[in-house]
C-alpha cells in the first residue's frame, strides 16, 4: 500500500494542508524542530487504525481531528481512508473498486506492530540504553527493539513487577511458612493444636466424670458423716459448757433442801409473815387496851363501864335529840313571851275603839259583825255623803247666778251709752288735718306735700278703726242679751234639784242609824266613819281569835317538854349524880343537858375499852392457832399473859425466817430445773444430748454427759481438741466441694463443643485468609510464568529468520565491518541473560554485544528493523530523524539502504539534517522533497534545494 495524497483538514498544527501526488518511493520531508514532523508521523501511524484517546495525540484546534488519504494497493486499486475524530478509519473506494476493510489495506497487521515496526524514530533509538538493567540484557533489548518487539522488552519488567507483588506474600518459592503466609499458617497451627487439645477433652471428660462420681458418692458423703459426728460432739460439749454453772448450782441447792427437810415439811406456809404481823398487831392491841383503860378510869372513876354500856341505846338517843331539845326549850320560852305581848296589845286596841268596852276582851265575842253587810254599808255611806255634798253646794251656786244676772243687765245698759261720742271724733280729726296742710303749703310747699300725705294716711287709718269698733259694739250687745237669758234659766233648775236631795238624805240616814246600833257604836258616831269602824272591829275580832289559838299551842309545848325532862332525869339518875328537878320555866334544862353529854362521853370510853379488849383476844387466838399449826402438841392456854405468848411467838418467827430462805432457794432450784429443761429441750440440743434415745429424760442425759467430766476446764480442753479436728475435716470437705464444683464446671465445659468450635473457627478463618493470599500468589506467579513463555517465544522467533537477514543488512550498513549476527542456539533457563554476538571482519572470535559502540548498536538496531520490515507485506515506512548518530560514512550507507528499501516500500523520511538529505539524494534514484514549516507543507520539489535552504536559512 502506498499513499497518493493526503489532506489534513485539521490535525494538530496541520490544518488545511495537502500533499498531492506523493512519490511512491522515497519522500523526504524537511522541517526544522517543532515544524510539525512528529504530528505528521503520528497521523500516518494511526491512519490504518484510528486515533486513540491519548495524551500524545496532538490536540485538535478546531473541533475534531479530520484528515484523509488516498492510497493505492498493490493491485492498483485505490481507496480513500478518512480519519474523523476517534472513530475507526472509514474506507471508501475511489472509483469502482470493491468495498474492503481497513484491515485488508494494512494486511491484517495489528496497529501496535505497525507502529513499532514501520515507524523508526529518534526517540526510539535514544531509548535503547535507557531503562534496562544489565549490559547483556541491554544488548538483547537492542535486538528486540530493533525487531519492533517492544512488548518483549517489557515482559521482563512485568515479570519483575509480578515478582515484586508475589514476594511479600510467599517469598520466592511460595512456601507456607514464609512472608505473608507465615502469620496465617502459624494461626492455623495454633488452631490445630487447640483442636487436638479440644479433641482430647473427650478422654478428659471421662476421667473427670469418674473423679466427680467418686467425690459425689464416696469421699464427700464420708467426710460429711465424720464432720457430723464431730459437730455432734462439739455441740454436746457446748451444751454442757453453756449449762455448766447453772447445773452445778442446781445440784448444790438440791443438797441443801434435802438437809432442811423437817423444817421444810412442818413449818406452815406463810407462817413467818403471818407471825411477824400478828406479833406487831398483838403488841399494838395490848398497848391500846391499857391506854383506853387509863382514860376511862380518869373520867368515870370506879364506875363500871358496863352501866354505861347498858344504857347505850338511850344515851346515844339522847345525844342525837339533845340539840332538838335545846331548840324546843328556846321555842317554848319565845312563844310564851309573844302570847303575853299580844294580850297587852289587844286590850289596848279594844279600849281605843270604844272606851266603854274597857279591857275585857270577851266583849268582842258579843259584837255581831256578821249582821252588817260591808258592801251595802259602804254604798249607803257613799250615797248619803254624795247627796249631802250636792245639797250643800246649791245655795252658793244660786247666789252666784243671781250676781251674774245683775251684772249682765248693767253691762247692757253701759254698752248702749258708749256708742254716741265716737262719731264726733272723726270729723274733728279730719278738720285738724286740713288746717295742718294748709299751713305747710304756706310755709314750704315741698313740706306741705309730705305733711298732706301723712295726714291723709292718718285720717284713713282712724276711719278704718272707727268702723271696726262700731261693728264690735253691735255684736257685744247681742251676746249680753243671750247671757242674761241663760242665767235666768239656771236659777230655776237649782231650786228643783235642792228639794230632791233632801229626800234622799232622809231615807239613807235611817239605814245608817240601824247599822250603828248593830255594831254597838255610840249613836253619835258620824255616818262617814261607819265603814272604818266596821273594818277595825272586824280586824280586832280576827286577831283576838288568833291569840286564843296560840294559847292552846303553848300549853301543848309545855306538856311535851315536861315529859322529856321527866324521862332524862329518870335515866341519868343512876349514872350521874346531882341532877336538879325540873321547874315550870325549864330554867335547869341546861344542867340536865350537860349531864346527858357527860354520860355520853363515858359511854364512848366504855365502848373503846370493850373494842380493844376484844381485838387483843382475837389476836391472841390467832397466834395460838399459828403456833399449834407448826406443833399441834404444844401446850398453850388462851389466857396466857402477853409477855409469855410473845416469848413463844419470837422463836417461831426466827424459824419462819429460815423457812422463807429455804423457800426462795427451793424456788431457785425449781427455776433452774425448769430453765435447764426448757433450754435442753430445744429440739437441736435435745437431739444432740439424747443421741437417738428419744425416751430418755433430757436432764438425765445431760447429767450423764456432765458427769463424764470433772471440771469445766476439762470440757474446754476436750472442746478445743475436737474443734481442731473439725476444722481440719471442714477444710478437707470444703476443698472436696470446691474440687467438685471445678469438676462439674469442667465436665460441663468438656461436654460442650465450644472449644472445638472455636478451634475450627480459628483454623477456618486463618485458612480463608491464607487461601486468598495463596490464590493471589499463584495468580502472580502464573502470570509471570505466562510472560516468561511469551518472552521465550519471542527470543526464539527473533533468533530465526530475522537475525539471518539482519546480518546481511548489518554488514552493508557497516560497510562490511561486521558480517554476521548470531545468538546461542541452546535453550537457557534464564532468557534475560541470552545474548547475541557479532563477527567483525578480520577478527576470528565474534564480539559480545557489550563490546559494541553506541553507533554500532544503532546500526544493528536498524539492520534488524529493516530485516523485519522485509518480512512483512509492504506498508509505508516512516523514519523520523532516526540516524543522527551515524558517522558520515555509515550515514551514507544507511541512506543507501533506505533508498534501496524505497524501491519496494514507500518511505517517508522526516528530518532536520540537510546532510542526511544530501546522502539520500545521492543514494536514491529518485526522491520527492517537501518542506514542512510551522504546520505548512510545501512541495513537492524535485530537488532538495528548497528543503536544504529551509534547514539552512
Amino acid at each position: 500500500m502506498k499513499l497518493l495524497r493526503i489532506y489534513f483538514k485539521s490535525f494538530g498544527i496541520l490544518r488545511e494542508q495537502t500533499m498531492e501526488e506523493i512519490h511512491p518511493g522515497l519522500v523526504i520531508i524537511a522541517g526544522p524542530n517543532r515544524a510539525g514532523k512528529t504530528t505528521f508521523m503520528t497521523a500516518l501511524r494511526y491512519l490504518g487504525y484510528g486515533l486513540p484517546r491519548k495524551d500524545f495525540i496532538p490536540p485538535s484546534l478546531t473541533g475534531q481531528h479530520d484528515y484523509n488519504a488516498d492510497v493505492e494497493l498493490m493491485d492498483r486499486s485505490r481507496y480513500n481512508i478518512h480519519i474523523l475524530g476517534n472513530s475507526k478509519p472509514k474506507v471508501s473506494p475511489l472509483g469502482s473498486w470493491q468495498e474492503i476493510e481497513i484491515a485488508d489495506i494494512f494486511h491484517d497487521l495489528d496497529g501496535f506492530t505497525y507502529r513499532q515496526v514501520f515507524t523508526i524514530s529518534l526517540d526510539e533509538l535514544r531509548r535503547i540504553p535507557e531503562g534496562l538493567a544489565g549490559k547483556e540484557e541491554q544488548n538483547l533489548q537492542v535486538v528486540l527493539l530493533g525487531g519492533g518487539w517492544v512488548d518483549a522488552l517489557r515482559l521482563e519488567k512485568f515479570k519483575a513487577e509480578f515478582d515484586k507483588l508475589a514476594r511479600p506474600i510467599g517469598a520466592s518459592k511460595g512456601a507456607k511458612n514464609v512472608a505473608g503466609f507465615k502469620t496465617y499458617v502459624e494461626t492455623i497451627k495454633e488452631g490445630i493444636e487447640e483442636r487436638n487439645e479440644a479433641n482430647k477433652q473427650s478422654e478428659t471428660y471421662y476421667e473427670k466424670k469418674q473423679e466427680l462420681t467418686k467425690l459425689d458418692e464416696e469421699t464427700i458423703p464420708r467426710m460429711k458423716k465424720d464432720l457430723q459426728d464431730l459437730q455432734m460432739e462439739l455441740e454436746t460439749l457446748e451444751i454442757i459448757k453453756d449449762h455448766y454453772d447453772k447445773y452445778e448450782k442446781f445440784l448444790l441447792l438440791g443438797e441443801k433442801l434435802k438437809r432442811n427437810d423437817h423444817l421444810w415439811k412442818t413449818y406452815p406456809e406463810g407462817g413467818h409473815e403471818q407471825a411477824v404481823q400478828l406479833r406487831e398487831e398483838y403488841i399494838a392491841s395490848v398497848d391500846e387496851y391499857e391506854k383506853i383503860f387509863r382514860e376511862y378510869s380518869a373520867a368515870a372513876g370506879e364506875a363500871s363501864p358496863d352501866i354505861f354500856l347498858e344504857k347505850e341505846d338511850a344515851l346515844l338517843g339522847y345525844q342525837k335529840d339533845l340539840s332538838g331539845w335545846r331548840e324546843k326549850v328556846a321555842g317554848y320560852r319565845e312563844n310564851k313571851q309573844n302570847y303575853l305581848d299580844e294580850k297587852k296589845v289587844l286590850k289596848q286596841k279594844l279600849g281605843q275603839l270604844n272606851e266603854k268596852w274597857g279591857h275585857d276582851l270577851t266583849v268582842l265575842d258579843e259584837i255581831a259583825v256578821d249582821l252588817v253587810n260591808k258592801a251595802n254599808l259602804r254604798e249607803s255611806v257613799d250615797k248619803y255623803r254624795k247627796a249631802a255634798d250636792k245639797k250643800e253646794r246649791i245655795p252658793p251656786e244660786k247666789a252666784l247666778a243671781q250676781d251674774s244676772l245683775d251684772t249682765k243687765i248693767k253691762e247692757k245698759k253701759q254698752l248702749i251709752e258708749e256708742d254716741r261720742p265716737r262719731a264726733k271724733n272723726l270729723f274733728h280729726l279730719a278738720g285738724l288735718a286740713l288746717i295742718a296742710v294748709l299751713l305747710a303749703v304756706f310755709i314750704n310747699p315741698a313740706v306741705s306735700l309730705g305733711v298732706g300725705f301723712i295726714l291723709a294716711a292718718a285720717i284713713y287709718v282712724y276711719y278704718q278703726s272707727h268702723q271696726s269698733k262700731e261693728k264690735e259694739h253691735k255684736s257685744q250687745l247681742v251676746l249680753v242679751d243671750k247671757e242674761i237669758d241663760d242665767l235666768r234659766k239656771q236659777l230655776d233648775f237649782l231650786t228643783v234639784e235642792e228639794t230632791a236631795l233632801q229626800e234622799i238624805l232622809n231615807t239613807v240616814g235611817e239605814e245608817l242609824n240601824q247599822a250603828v246600833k248593830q255594831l254597838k257604836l255610840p249613836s253619835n258616831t258620824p255616818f262617814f266613819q261607819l265603814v272604818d269602824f266596821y273594818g277595825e272591829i272586824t280586824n280586832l275580832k280576827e286577831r283576838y281569835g288568833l291569840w286564843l289559838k296560840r294559847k292552846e299551842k303553848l300549853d301543848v309545848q309545855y306538856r311535851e317538854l315536861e315529859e322529856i325532862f321527866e324521862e332524862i332525869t329518870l335515866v341519868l339518875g343512876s349514872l350521874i349524880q346531882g341532877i336538879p328537878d325540873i321547874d315550870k320555866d325549864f330554867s335547869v334544862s341546861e344542867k340536865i343537858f350537860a349531864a346527858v353529854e357527860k354520860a355520853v362521853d363515858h359511854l364512848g370510853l366504855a365502848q373503846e375499852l370493850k373494842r380493844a379488849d376484844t381485838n387483843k383476844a382475837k389476836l391472841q387466838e390467832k397466834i395460838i392457832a399459828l403456833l399449834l399449826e407448826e406443833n399441834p402438841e404444844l401446850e398453850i392456854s388462851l389466857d396466857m399473859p402477853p409477855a409469855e405468848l410473845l416469848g413463844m411467838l419470837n422463836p417461831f418467827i426466827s424459824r419462819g425466817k429460815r423457812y422463807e430462805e429455804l423457800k426462795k432457794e427451793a424456788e431457785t432450784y425449781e427455776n433452774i430445773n425448769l430453765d435447764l429443761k426448757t433450754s435442753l429441750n430445744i429440739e437441736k440440743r435435745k437431739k444432740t444430748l439424747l443421741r437417738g434415745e428419744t425416751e430418755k429424760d433430757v436432764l438425765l442425759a445431760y447429767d450423764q454427759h456432765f458427769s463424764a467430766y470433772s471440771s469445766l476446764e476439762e470440757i474446754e480442753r476436750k472442746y478445743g481438741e475436737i474443734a481442731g479436728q473439725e476444722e481440719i475435716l471442714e477444710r478437707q470437705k470444703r476443698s472436696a466441694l470446691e474440687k467438685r464444683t471445678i469438676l462439674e464446671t469442667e465436665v460441663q465445659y468438656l461436654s460442650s463443643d465450644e472449644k472445638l468450635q472455636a478451634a475450627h473457627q480459628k483454623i477456618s478463618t486463618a485458612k480463608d485468609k491464607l487461601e486468598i493470599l495463596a490464590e493471589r500468589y499463584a495468580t502472580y506467579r502464573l502470570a509471570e510464568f505466562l510472560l516468561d513463555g511469551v518472552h521465550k517465544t519471542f527470543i526464539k522467533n527473533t533468533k530465526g529468520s530475522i537475525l539471518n537477514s539482519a546480518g546481511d543488512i548489518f554488514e552493508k550498513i557497516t560497510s562490511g565491518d561486521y558480517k554476521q549476527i548470531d545468538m546461542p542456539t541452546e535453550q537457557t533457563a534464564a532468557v534475560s541473560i541470552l545474548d547475541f554476538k557479532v563477527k567483525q571482519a578480520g577478527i576470528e572470535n565474534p564480539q559480545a554485544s557489550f563490546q559494541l559502540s553506541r553507533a554500532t548498536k544503532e546500526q544493528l538496531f536498524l539492520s534488524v528493523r529493516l530485516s523485519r520490515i522485509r518480512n512483512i507485506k509492504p506498508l509505508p515506512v516512516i523514519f523520523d530523524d532516526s540516524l543522527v548518530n551515524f558517522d558520515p560514512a555509515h550515514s551514507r550507507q544507511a541512506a543507501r539502504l533506505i533508498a534501496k528499501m524505497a524501491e519496494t516500500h514507500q518511505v517517508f523520511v522526516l528530518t532536520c539534517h540537510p546532510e542526511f538529505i544530501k546522502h539520500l539524494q545521492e543514494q536514491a534514484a529518485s526522491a520527492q522533497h517537501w518542506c514542512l514549516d510551522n504546520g505548512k507543507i510545501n512541495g513537492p520539489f524535485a530537488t532538495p534545494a528548497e528543503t536544504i535552504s529551509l534547514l539552512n536559512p
Partner: protein
Amino acid sequence: MQESIRFIHTGDLHLGSPLKTVGKVSDVLQKSLRESTYKAIENIVDAALNYDVDFVLMCGDIYDNESRSVKGNLFLNTQMKRLASKGIPVFIIYGNHDSIGRSMDFFKLPGNVKVLGAEAVEMYEVADKSGRIRARILGQSYGAPSETKKIHLNYKPPEDDLINIAMLHTGLDPGPNTYVPCSPEELKNFPAIHYWALGHIHAPTIINDKNPVIAYPGIPQGRNVGESGLKGCLLVEAAAPDQMKVQFVPTSPIVWLIPKISLDLYPSLSDIGDLEELLVEQGQKISAAASGIFPDCSLAENDFKPEGYAVRWEISGRCPIHDDLIAGNEPEITETLEELLNQRLSTHKPYLWTEGVKLRTASPIPDLEFLLKKDETLKTLHAIRQKIQEDEKYKEEAISAMGEIWYKPRRPEDLRDDTFPVTAERFDSLLEDAFNLALERIVKEREEQ
C-alpha cells in the same frame, strides 16, 4: 405381593464437625450454623420416624476424628433413643474418621443400636413390621483410620430370597488406597448383594440404580462451600431383591452454594451500589426458590425447606467498573459487599448468608478477540496459556510455579489444613486470572506509551 421393607441409609455424619464460618455472623445465624450438623441428624431421625422405617444404616464416619466431642456423643445417644422408643434398630459401621481402634463412645448406646465390629464381617437378619425376616445386613467397621484390604470380599451372604444389604465405607477407588480399594464394576458383579450401602463420599450419588443398587447418601449437612448443594440421606423401599426404590430425603438445614455471576452480562453496572443490587436480586431469587441444589436422584415426598443458604459469590467478567472501582480495592470491596449482603439477606426466611465474595473481574479490552488472533504478543500469550492447559508437563511446571503452598491432591478427600489442593477447576480459574493479569498489564503499558 409382599409388603416392602423400608430403611434409611445414611453415613458421614461427622458429628461435632462444625460448619466453616468466617467473618461477622449474627448470634442467631451463628446458632443456626453451629446447630445445623446436629439438626441434620435430627432430621434423619425424624425422617426414619415419619416414614416408619424398619431399620437405619449408618455407613461410617459417624464421628469426626478431628472433632470428637462429648456433645456429639450425647446428641447421638439422644437421637438413637428416639429410634429405640419406636423399636427401630440401627446398624453402624465405623469408617476412617471413627475407626473402632479409636473408640469415641463415652456413653453406652441404647440397645437398638448395633455396631458391627472390625475383626470380621458381621451379618444380621432384620424383620419387617410383621416380624417376618426379610433382609440381611452385612458389614465391617474400620479397625484403624486406614483400611487397605478389600474387606468386602468377605461379604458372603447366602443366596436366597432375602434381601442382602452390604454396608461398606469406601472411596470406590480400585487403585491402591487406604479406604477399601474397589471399583464400581467389582461391586456391580458381586454375588448375592442387592444393595451396597456405601459411605465416605460426601456427595449423594447413585452409582448403580439396580441389581445391585450402589449408592452414597452423602453427608447430611455440607460443612463448607466445597460441599455445596442440598444434602440428606436415602430412603430405600425394597419389595424384593431386584425391586428397590431409592429416594433422596433432604436433611441439611443449610445449603452451601456458589452462585457465579458474570458481569459481562451486565455492562450497565456503574458502581458498587449497582453490583450490590444485582447480588441482592440474585440472592432473593435463590432464597425464594433455589434451583440446582438437588442431587441427581429422585426425591422423596417431603415438605422440607432449608433454614438458609450459605453462599460464596463468584463474580467474574470484563466490565468497566473493574478498572474504575474494583482493581486494587478487592479486599475492601469484598468486605463491604459481604457486610451489605448479610445485612440485607441474612434475615430473610430462608436466610441467605454470604460466606464470601470472590471477585475475579477483569478490564474490558476492546477487540480482544481480534487482538488475540492478530497481535503478536497477545497471540503468543494466549498460545502459552493454551499450551499450559494442553501440555501436562508444562502444566506441572506451571503448578510448581504457583508455590509450595499448593499441592496436587491424590484423592478428593486429600485435604490439608495449611496448604491447598490444586484441583483442575481451581487451576483453570487461577490460570485464567493470571492470563487476564498479564494481558491487562501488556495492554495497559501500551496505552501508556
